Each structure stands twice: as structure tokens, then as C-alpha cells.
């Protein structure tokens, strides 16, 4: 008995040795990216405690004193801060409008591209439609200024030549919101068709042929074959977009904003930048960032639950 277990142990050790001999290089390779993830993604999570503490530049995050109100002082401060409340409103408003207009746009465009009878023309259309995705928001804001500025912008020059009143696309808060939403759709619509076009290639062409034999019109074919073929892709992308509803990118609003429209353009990411990096309220800004991350996760989980209730595949 004893000899047997000893042999088993030896066999096991031999196996481990062989396994390591074979695979140690893989672990060595993984080590570098893992160190990256730990340092740049996980270590910052330990700094979230700053949100619950009195910030001090001379102390480490672990040594700082707890904030008042059992550490919740900065969350309470945030919710009584007008800038923060406006930032929440603006973030939700801009993201919701972006979703309403930006989400269906690539679906419609993909359907249109799918209906194009000329392959070469389709390719050219795609190439041009992908272009805005490759422009930085700085460049796009430069384009917007040159085209939409109230006095010297091309669009307003044309309007004036036609005898119409110029439109303050960038200088009036209400107009700025629509310009912002439009530029977002403009930048992303072509690029976002890629996924839908890929899903469309998975549809069996015989379905279209059968429908044609039955005398279905083009719109009927789109409604009964193309759209159902896109259904699961649409659901997954919708979940992901809902998870982003309180998330805010920085590059786009910061590049497009100007001093006249801050009442609608200050979103959470800009709030965090203004208070935590330009200003010195690190604890408040950390609290706001943490709040934003948590709400984002909650939205994502719930959107996924709803999708699964409707019997779709969901994200996980």
C-alpha cells in the first residue's frame, strides 16, 4: 500500500514536471501582460478608497484619515453640488440622444448597403463611410468650426447667400446638443455597419429567393428576412450601449465644447477632470468616478437580465 502511494506520488510529480517543462514558457509569456493588468488596472482600484477618505498628497491612500459621515462625506457633497447634478443630467441626455439616433443609424445603413446592386459602388461607399472613424475628435472639432461657425462657417455662408438667417450651431446650448449628437452619428455610423454587414452575410440567400418566388416586395423581404437575421446582433449591441449610458468619454465633449455651451456640455468625465486634475478636490472626483463605474455595471447587468428574459442569448 505504502509503496503504491509513493509510486503514485512520484508519477504525479513526474507529470507536473513534464507539464511545467512543456508549458513554463507560456506562463513566462503571460507574466508580462499580467503584470500590466495588475499595475494599471487592479492597483488603481485600491485608490478608490480615496473617495471615502480625506485626501492628502503626502500620505499614501491607506494612511489617509476617513472622511466624515462614516466616509460618505464626498458622496453627500457630490449630490449637493450643482455642477455634479448638471453633469449627470448632461451625461444622461447626450448619451440617450446618442443612443436614440446613433443606434438605429448603422442598422438602417447596413440594410441599405445590403440592397445595393453594384459591388464596386458598395465598396467605395463603405470606404468613404469608414473615414470619419479614423479622424480624431480634435480634427472633427476643427472641421466643425470651419463648417459650422456662425460667421465664417461654410454652412452659414451658404445659408446667408440663400437669404436665410445663420444658425448658431455651436454657440447656443440647444443647438450645440444636436450638433454634438449629429457629429457622433456622423463619426460612427459607417464603422458600426461592419458588424451588421458581417451578420447579414450569415443569412441564407435561399430565403430571399423563396420570398421572391412568393412575390414578396423588397420592403417585405427586409422586414421578414433581413431584420430577423440581425436580431441577436442588435440585442447584444443594445446591451453594450445601455451599459454605456452613464459612461462618458472625454475626448469628444472636451474637443467640441466651448465657453458658451458649458451648461449642456459639462459631462461627468469633464467634471472629474475639472475637480480632480485641474482642481484639488481629488476625493470628490474619485467619488464621482466610482459612482459612475458602479452605475455603469448595474445598467449592464440589468440590460443583460432583461435581454435574457426575452429569450435572447445575452452577453453571459
Amino acid at each position, binding site marked *: 500500500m505504502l509503496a503504491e502511494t509513493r509510486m503514485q506520488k512520484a508519477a504525479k510529480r513526474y507529470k507536473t514536471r513534464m507539464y511545467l517543462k512543456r508549458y513554463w514558457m507560456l506562463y513566462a509569456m503571460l507574466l508580462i501582460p499580467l503584470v500590466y493588468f495588475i499595475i494599471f488596472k487592479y492597483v488603481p482600484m485600491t485608490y478608490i478608497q*480615496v473617495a471615502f477618505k480625506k485626501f492628502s498628497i503626502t500620505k499614501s491612500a491607506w494612511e489617509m484619515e476617513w472622511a466624515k459621515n462614516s466616509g460618505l462625506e464626498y458622496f453627500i457633497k457630490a449630490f449637493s453640488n450643482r455642477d455634479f447634478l448638471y453633469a449627470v443630467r448632461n451625461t444622461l441626455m447626450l448619451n440617450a440622444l446618442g443612443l436614440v439616433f446613433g443606434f438605429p443609424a448603422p442598422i438602417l445603413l447596413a440594410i441599405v448597403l445590403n440592397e445595393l446592386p453594384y459591388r464596386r459602388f458598395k465598396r467605395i461607399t463603405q470606404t468613404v463611410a469608414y473615414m470619419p472613424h479614423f479622424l480624431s475628435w480634435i480634427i472633427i472639432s476643427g472641421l466643425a468650426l470651419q463648417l459650422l461657425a456662425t460667421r465664417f462657417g461654410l454652412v452659414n455662408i451658404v445659408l446667408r447667400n440663400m437669404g436665410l438667417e445663420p444658425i448658431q450651431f455651436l454657440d447656443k446650448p440647444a443647438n450645440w446638443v444636436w450638433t454634438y449628437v449629429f457629429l457622433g452619428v456622423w463619426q460612427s455610423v459607417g464603422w458600426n455597419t461592419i458588424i451588421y454587414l*458581417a451578420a447579414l452575410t450569415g443569412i441564407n440567400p435561399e430565403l430571399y429567393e423563396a420570398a421572391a418566388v412568393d412575390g414578396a*416586395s423588397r420592403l417585405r423581404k427586409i422586414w421578414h428576412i433581413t431584420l430577423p437575421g440581425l436580431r441577436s446582433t442588435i440585442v447584444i449591441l443594445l446591451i453594450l450601449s445601455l451599459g454605456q449610458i452613464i459612461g462618458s468619454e472625454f475626448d469628444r465633449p472636451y474637443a467640441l465644447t466651448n465657453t458658451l455651451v458649458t451648461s449642456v456640455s459639462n459631462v461627468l468625465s469633464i467634471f472629474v477632470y475639472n475637480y480632480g486634475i485641474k482642481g484639488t478636490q481629488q476625493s470628490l472626483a474619485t467619488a464621482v468616478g466610482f459612482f459612475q463605474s458602479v452605475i455603469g455595471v448595474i445598467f449592464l447587468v440589468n440590460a443583460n437580465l432583461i435581454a435574457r428574459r426575452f429569450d435572447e442569448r445575452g452577453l453571459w
Partner: protein
Amino acid sequence: MVKSKNSKTGDYVVVAICVVLILICFLPVWNVFVRSLSSPAALVRSDVYLWPKELDLTAYSLVLKDAEYTWALAWTAMLTVGCTFLSMTLTTLCAFPLVFDKLKGRKLVNGLILVTIYFNAGTIPSFLLFHNLNLINSPLVLALPYSLSVFNMIIMRTFLQNIPDSLRESAEIDGANPFQILFSIYIPLSTSVIATLSLFYAVGRWNGYSDALMFMNRNKKYYPIQLLLYFIIQSKESVDAATQEGFSSPGASDAIKAATVMIATIPILMVYPWLQRFFIHGVTLGAMKG
């Protein structure tokens, strides 16, 4: 894909929509290009639409003579090449081992990586970390913190997983070690995904400015081109060169702004159409859940 039974009117509508789309995407960039080539006088009269008026290259020569701008171009180009190489190395090192389904701890690593997509610590915690690592105001802050994108890593992993296991297994039987398998089998078969992801990383670095604005604000010498552009575009006057050469009319500075925008955009516009076939494939892979 033969849909000959469809009505002709429908085809016309579809083509018309696409033509409008092409114009909407193309004309803004074209107009700025045309402005950059027009004379200041024509710009002041504001009658430059689709073709340059009084062709004039002074804006370009002024901008390209501006030391600050050309240095930013050169520096950003170097930075982009370096960052792309670093990012691709990290991405490959992360994706390749995860292809081996017998690797123990693979699920744990996958999980650790996925969490970072759904939850991130936020800007200020990152700032405090960079502060403690002495990265604030160092050009390294533009290279290291965002060098590995999980999204791109997943694309790479999915692509590598589609390479038949039998190739790898026969090499293992022949006694090849993982490094040899990576360099002699996987990398030669992955040129398309490597091209795609390099494009994504390079475009991201070339177009990025917020990390420099937030974490490298005081180190003006190493501003990437987009941050410099931001200050040029937002300013009422233009690059130093404009005032030095005695150009101060609004038209001149407009042409100069247009030229600075075009010079920073043209490199990308020259490259991406050639990689279209690849990146379509790459995005599609990213959409498939890994």
C-alpha cells in the same frame, strides 16, 4: 447575392441614399482641404467651396517651417511606432498562451482580464497611481498605461483560436517549444490580424490627446500632435509662424488652421483604405464572443 427580381426604383433610392452619405462624409474633409490650399484673400471673401481659389501653398510652407509643429509631428510619429510595437508585443504575449486549452489557470486569467472591461477604477485613481510611479509629466505616461487593449486582445485570441489545433499539436510532438510555435506557425499565419490591430493601436495613439492633457500637462516639449492641434484650433490667432511672417488677417490664420488639420489627417487617410479588407475581418472577429 443575385436579387434581380427587385424593382428598379428601389435600386435608385438605395443608390441615392448612398450618394448622399458619401457626400456628407467626404465634403467636410474636402472643404477643409480646399481651404488649406486657397489664398487668404479668397478665404476672407468666403467664397471657397469645392475647389481652391487662387491656389496658394503659403499656409503649408508656414506650418511646415514652424519648429514646434514639425517636432510634434515627428515626435508623435516616433511615439506611434514605438507604442504600436509595444502594444502588439503585449497583445500577442497575452493572447497566444490563452490559446492552449490545456494550460492550467487559463480560465482565471481570462476572468481577471474580463473584469477590467466592465469595471474600471476611474481617472483620479489612475492619476494617483501615475503620480506614485513618477509617470506624471513623463512621456512614458503616453506609452505604458494604455498599451494593452482588452478588446484588441480578444480579437487576437479569437483569431489565433481559429488556427487549427492540429498544426500546433504536431509541432509539439516534434519537440517545438511555445516560442518556436509562436514564431514559426502562429505569427506567419496571423499577418492580417496583426495588420488590423496595429492599425487600431496606431490610430488610437496618433489621434489621442486626453492622456497628455491630463497626465503630461506641464511637459510641453512632448505634447503629441493632437494636443498641439487642439490649442491651435481653439486659439484665436494661429501658429507662431503666422505672426512672425506678418500674416495676421483672419483668412491667413484660417488657411493655416486648415493646413495644420490636413497635415495631421493625411497620413491616416492614406493608410486605412489599403487595410480595409483586414479591419473588416478584425472587427467581425471582435464581435464574436471569445
